[in-house]
């Protein structure tokens, strides 16, 4: 196993490095996104009531926020530059579209966040209460606007929209900014991701507050914090559920292979059931004749409904997607018969070859031949990326990881809704303090919410492999021309550095939490 990792190609090392840095980044960002709003709400109560208690509460959570924010920034800068350092072909092929959201993120969001965060932390005595409160809200908006732009960029990779290929520059160019920004996939992804972050932050606040109640310390602070977080979390969960449903629908339409992997579905069916608890056959591969599942508890017809809003709809499995031949409805509402991946690969290669011919004809000044090559290039362009694949089975993502991650994410997401309802019920009934089992549930929800959150990204990103840009560029064609050894070295550097910083961060956080808001003895 270790041997096979060490001899991996530059693509695999680059993917590993990107996954590593993204996972670390996502340990810190969601708490920041959600906590910033809860802090702003708490400070609003302080400004409205003038009660010093709320200022203490605000400041305590702000300290937690600050520690997280710093390391979120540290791990974020790598991601932006990695597109260039490790995915240089990608950066040219779609940079004309993909770069813009990153630049706008910097100009509109990062400056807002970093300017007002300094006021939020150091401006308590330098500005009026209201101005300070505005700074806290602007910090929260800045953080969330930055999430918007980066998720627009991610959404575009999953569902490229608003662009066309320019053979003269050999790249995709933006044709409609609004189609990029308001792509349904981008918008849904934004709301699904930020609301998941709000749920994470709410669970963190509830869990930490539960710890204070277990220790019989700072009870007033803990109870009030729980009420705010549980309310915030419950509303966020509703939105999360809604956008999760939207996400499943979009995946079915735009990334059917991801849906099949999420369900471990090899043989497609009508009235397909949604697997609730199941185990897929270990070592199961395409066309090996094994059953899909060892066991599978499912809700009949529900997958068809989620994906196509029709309990009887046909959901293609991995076999169907590779072999084609099933009927589906295309983007224009026309019935089509799916073509096999082998044919897509061939047509992708035609398209790539036509690009080369186009260039050659242009250089010779043969406009007629160029026009003909261009026509052929465009005719098969939607399969362009397939041309870089070697085998039809290359389009199958890692099924078990996608399948289990999806179940963990959804299962925990529903569990957190129960946590919020339980917390609000207990607060309402004045029972928060004396139900210790419940407080332990709250506390142990903290690691669970981080697991759920990471699983969400695993489904989204692993589930869309091998594509860097859906159907247009697989990762093998997107990577930079560098040695695998170079990327391996930076991978281990980041791994060591980020692990050390993560341990430092957790130690600092725990120490700060133990110190508490110091309201009771003041």
């Amino acid at each position, binding site marked *: 196993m270790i041997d096979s990792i060490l001899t991996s190609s530059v693509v695999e090392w680059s993917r590993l490095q990107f996954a590593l840095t993204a996972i670390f980044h996502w340990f810190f960002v969601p708490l920041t996104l959600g906590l910033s709003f809860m802090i702003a709400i708490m400070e609003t109560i302080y400004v409205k009531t003038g009660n010093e208690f709320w200022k203490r509460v605000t*400041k305590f959570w702000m300290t937690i926020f*600050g520690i997280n*924010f*710093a390391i979120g920034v*540290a*791990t*974020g*800068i790598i991601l*932006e*530059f990695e*597109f*260039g*350092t490790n995915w*240089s*072909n990608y*950066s*040219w*092929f779609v*940079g*004309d*579209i*993909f*770069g*813009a959201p*990153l*630049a*706008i993120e*910097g*100009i*509109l969001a*990062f*400056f*807002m966040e*970093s*300017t007002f*965060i*300094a*006021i939020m932390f*150091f401006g308590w005595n*330098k500005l009026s209460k209201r101005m300070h409160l505005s700074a806290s809200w602007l910090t929260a908006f800045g953080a969330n606007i930055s999430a918007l732009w980066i998720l627009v960029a991610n959404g575009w990779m999953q569902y490229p929209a608003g662009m066309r290929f320019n053979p003269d*520059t*050999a790249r995709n160019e*933006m044709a409609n900014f609004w189609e990029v920004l308001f792509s349904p996939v981008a918008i849904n992804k934004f709301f699904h991701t930020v609301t998941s972050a709000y749920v994470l932050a709410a669970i963190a606040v509830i869990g930490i507050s539960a710890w204070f109640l277990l220790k019989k310390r700072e009870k007033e602070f803990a109870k009030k914090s729980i009420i705010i977080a549980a309310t915030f979390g419950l509303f966020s969960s509703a939105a999360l559920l809604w956008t999760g449903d939207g996400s499943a629908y979009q995946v079915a339409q735009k990334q059917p292979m991801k849906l099949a992997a999420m369900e471990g579905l090899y043989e497609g069916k009508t009235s397909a059931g949604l697997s609730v608890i199941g185990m897929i056959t270990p070592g199961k591969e395409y066309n090996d004749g094994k059953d899909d599942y060892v066991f599978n508890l499912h809700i009949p017809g529900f997958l068809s409904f989620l994906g196509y809003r029709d309990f009887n709809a046909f959901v293609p499995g991995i076999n169907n997607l590779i072999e084609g031949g099933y009927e589906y409805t295309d983007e224009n509402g026309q019935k089509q018969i799916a073509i096999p991946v082998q044919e897509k690969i061939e047509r992708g290669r035609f398209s*790539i*070859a036509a690009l*080369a011919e186009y260039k050659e004809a242009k250089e010779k000044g043969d406009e007629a031949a160029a026009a003909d090559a261009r026509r052929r290039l465009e005719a098969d362009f939607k399969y362009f990326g397939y041309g870089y694949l070697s085998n039809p089975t290359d389009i199958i993502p890692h099924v078990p990881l996608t399948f289990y991650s999806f179940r963990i994410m959804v299962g925990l997401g529903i569990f957190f809704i129960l946590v919020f309802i339980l917390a609000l019920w207990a607060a309402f009934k004045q029972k928060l303090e004396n139900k210790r089992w419940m407080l332990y549930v709250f506390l142990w929800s903290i690691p669970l919410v981080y697991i759920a959150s990471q699983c969400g990204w695993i489904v989204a990103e692993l589930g869309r492999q091998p594509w860097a840009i859906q159907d247009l560029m697989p990762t093998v*064609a997107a990577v*930079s*021309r*560098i040695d695998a050894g170079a990327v391996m070295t*930076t991978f281990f*550097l980041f791994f060591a*550095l980020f692990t*050390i*910083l993560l341990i*430092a961060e957790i*130690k*600092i956080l*725990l*120490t700060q939490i133990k110190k508490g808001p110091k309201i009771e003895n003041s």
Partner: protein
Amino acid sequence: MDTTYIFLQHYWWFLVSLLGALLVFLLFVQGGQTLIYSIGKTDDERTVVINVLGRKWEFTFTTLVTFGGAFFASFPLFYSTSFGGAYWVWMAILIFFVIQAVSYEFRAKANNLLGKKTYETFLFLNGMLGTILLGTAVATFFTGSMFSVDKMNLTNLGGNVVISGWETPYHGLEAVLNPVNVALGLAVFFLSRILGSLYFINSVENSNITKRAKKQLWYNTIPFLVFFLFFLVAILLRDGFAVNPDTGQVDMESYKYFNNFIQMPIVLIVFLAGVLLVLYGVGRSLFTNWAKGIWFAGIGTVLTVLGLLLNVGYNNTSYYPSTYDLQGSLTIFNSSSSKFTLMVMSYVSILVPFVLAYIVYAWRVMNKKKISIDEIKNDSHAY
């Protein structure tokens, strides 16, 4: 000739240059980080020095990130060629910025695993190597790098499909073998220390710190001038990478960068005004008790860097030349985004003045009066 497109390419080179120029000014944070021990002799002094820097580090960091994003959006071929090729230089720069980002917040917190000294060392490393490497990397805009670009590699199925390649195994590290590159790196390093000293004089209420900061001004101004003049003379005398506007052909031209200044007098004026402002800001701070030197030297830095970057980007010059394959050199024309994207981005850039306005507002509010050791001691969030 699509004049709108040409205008947009120039406009975005201007904006990217401006961001780069602002970044060099904001490197006063990095310079300051290398002076923590020279200027703060007691624990309290070091704490106040670190805290006045700590209230500004995010501006520098954000400007670096935005500089990267804007460069990506407007000149994606540079992003893919330079970052993917000069891998080690950019990775080293990134790592030195990663260790900075946590250091302020973690340094003075209890149970921080690595101890105060380590985080202070992180700040020092970021200040020293971050600035030197950035300066060295930017100098290659004038001296060139060993890379090739062929967009048709995309169609090279079964072979190498990557369009940009670095043609030395050192992947960017070879830049330090050229003394001109290193001279700019060191010039940026010493300049950042000058600006850091001026920032301390401006914002800290403590006579010891002011006295020591002044001493540092002397120590750093002299090497800065040596390295900067060396770099400047070297590029003004060397052959530059000229582009034929009609054919896109790149050729070596004697005294190209000198000629660019002469042919673009406004750029020359911007550059010279910048140099004079830096000298004025430093000089007056050296000989009087004036605390506003940072503003003059800071604006001067912005203008100087802007002048240099406009020189290397405008007037049919290749801003990222390849010494491996001259015709693979990048210009603002052959490496830019499409006209449509540049136009969209230009609409967004209308908001830049608002961003600058709230940054200025925030700065003024936070620095209304000088920061003293007492203020930091009473601050619950002090670093």
